C-alpha cells in the first residue's frame, strides 16, 4: 500500500514553458492535500506527473520510497487519476462505460452497482454519455474514477460542472475516503468547501511551490492563498 508520495526537484516543460520548476512536495495517506494556484501554475502537470502520465525532465517521484518502475501491478492499479478529459465513450451508456473499465480492471460485476449507487447515478445509468449534461458527465467520470476503489486519489478540478448537491456529495465521499486512510491530492479553484477541510495546502505559482503545510487555525483559506501569491515562490 502506498502511504506516501514525495517529489524531489520536479522539473517539467509543457507547451514551451516551465510548468514545474524544481518542485519538492510530500503527500501522505489519510490526508487531503489541496492544490491551489492561478491558471497555468502547474497543478494539472503535477497531478498528471504523480499519476505517471507525464515523465519529468528532471527530479523524481517516489511512491512509499520506491520509484514507479519498482511498483507492482497492484500498487499501480491502486492509483486513480481524474483529469480534464472524462475518459468515457460518448456512444456508450454510463453502465456500458463502467462495464468496460470493470473488465479492464478485472473487477467483480457488483462494483458497478456499488459505484452507481454511491454517486446516485443509477437513474442515469442507461443513458448514453453523449446525451448527458456537463455536470452529469463529470459525475459519470467520478464513477469511473471511484470504480476500482483506489488507495491514491489524484483529482484535477473534480468539482467542475457539478451542481451544489453533487458537489456536497463528492466532498462527503472524499472525507469518507480520507477516514479510510486514502491518500488524496486534489486541485481546485474553488475555496469555499461545505464539508471538506484539507489537511494541507500546496500553493503553486509559475511551477514552484509558495506554500505547503496545514491551514493555520486563525487564517481563512482565501487569506492564506492571497498572502502566498503575494509572497511568491
Amino acid at each position, binding site marked *: 500500500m502506498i502511504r506516501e508520495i514525495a517529489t524531489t526537484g520536479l522539473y517539467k516543460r509543457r507547451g514551451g514553458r516551465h510548468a514545474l520548476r524544481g518542485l519538492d512536495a510530500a503527500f501522505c495517506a489519510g490526508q487531503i492535500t489541496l492544490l491551489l494556484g492561478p491558471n497555468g501554475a502547474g497543478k494539472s502537470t503535477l497531478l498528471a506527473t504523480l499519476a*505517471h*502520465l507525464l*515523465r519529468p525532465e528532471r527530479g523524481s517521484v517516489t511512491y512509499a520510497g520506491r520509484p514507479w518502475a519498482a511498483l507492482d*501491478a497492484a500498487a499501480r*492499479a491502486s492509483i486513480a487519476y481524474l483529469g480534464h478529459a472524462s475518459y468515457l*465513450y460518448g*456512444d456508450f451508456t454510463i453502465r456500458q462505460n463502467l462495464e*468496460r473499465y470493470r*473488465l479492464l480492471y478485472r473487477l467483480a460485476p457488483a462494483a458497478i452497482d456499488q459505484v452507481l449507487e454511491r454517486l446516485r447515478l443509477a437513474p442515469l445509468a442507461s443513458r448514453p454519455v453523449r446525451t448527458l449534461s456537463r455536470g452529469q458527465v463529470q459525475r459519470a467520470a467520478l464513477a469511473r474514477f471511484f470504480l476500482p476503489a483506489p488507495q491514491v486519489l489524484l483529482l484535477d478540478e473534480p468539482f467542475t460542472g457539478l451542481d451544489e448537491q453533487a458537489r456536497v456529495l463528492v466532498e462527503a465521499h472524499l472525507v469518507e475516503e480520507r477516514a479510510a486512510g486514502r491518500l488524496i491530492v486534489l486541485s481546485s479553484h474553488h475555496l469555499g468547501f461545505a464539508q471538506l477541510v484539507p489537511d494541507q495546502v500546496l500553493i503553486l505559482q509559475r511551477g514552484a511551490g509558495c506554500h505547503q503545510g496545514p491551514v493555520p487555525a486563525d487564517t481563512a483559506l482565501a487569506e492564506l492563498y492571497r498572502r502566498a501569491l503575494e509572497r511568491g515562490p
Partner: protein
Amino acid sequence: MRLLEQIGRLALGELRLEAQRQDALWAATFFGLVTVVLFALGIYDPSASPKALPALLWTALVLAGVTIIQRAFEAEREGACLQALALIPGAATPFFVAKVLAHFVTLSATMVLVTPLAWLLLAPDWPLPWLLVGATLGLGALAFAILGTLVGAMLEQLRQRALLLPLVLFPLMLPIVAIGVTITVEGQQQAGLTHVQVHIPAPPPAQVALGIGTAPTLTWPVDPQEPAAEQVARAFSHLAQHSAAPDLLVWQDGRQGVRLTAPRPLALVAHGMVLEEIPRDDRALWRQVALLGLLTLIALPLCLWLFRRLLDPL
C-alpha cells in the same frame, strides 16, 4: 477473470460500439462495393475480367480496411480513453487484441459481401477455390487489423492522420498483400484457367524479336471434370468464331508454352503443339497460406509490444 474471457467481452463491447456508431461498417461496405462495381464497369474486355478479380479483391480489402482504421479510435479520441488505458496495469494487451478482433470481424463482414459480388460481376463462369481465397483474404484482413490498429493508435492524436494513415500503413501491408495476391491469382488460375496449357516448340529468338513467333491465346472456362483434350477441342471450335490479338506468352520447361487466352488456335497446330494437363498443386498454395499466417502471427506480438510502448508517459 481469465485473459481470453476478458478479451472476448471487450471485443463484444467494441463490436457493440461499432454497431451503435455504424459509420465505419457502412462506409467500408459502401466503399468496397463501389470499388467492385466501378472496376467491373471499367473493364471492357470480358476476357480480362477474371484476371482482374484477385487484384480487385485485395484492392477492396485494403481500401475498406483503411476506411475502418481511419475511424478506429474516434471514440477513444473524444474522451481521451487511450490515456486512461495507461493508468490500468495489464490493460493494454486485452484492449489491443479486442480492438484487433473487432476490426477483423468488421473487415471480414465487408469482404463477405464484396467477394461474391466481385466474382459474380467479373468471373461468374470460373470456379473459384472459395476455401483458399477465403483463408487468404481472412489472413489478409487479420494482418490488416493488427497493423491498422497499431498505426491508428499511433496517429490518433495527429491532425494529419487521414493523410498519414495510408502513407504509413500501405508500405507495412505490402508483403502481406504481395503474398496474398500471388496466392489468390494462382489459386484462381489453378481452379479453372490453366489446368490446360498448350505448348509449342520455341520459335527462334530472331522470330520472337520480330514478333513473328508470338502465338495466339484465348480465355475460356475449364471444367475440371472434362478431359483436357476435349476441352481444347471444344475451345478450338469456339476460337474459330473469334479473332483477337495474342496477349500472353509463357516459358516453361525450356519450351515456349501458350496459355489459351486468345483466339486463332490454328496457328498453334501448324507449330506442332503438345497438349499437357498441368496438375493442380494445392499443397504449394496452402504452404504459401501458412507463410501468410506465420507473418500475421509474428506481427501480433510485435505490434502489441509497440502499442504498449506507445502508452508510456510522455
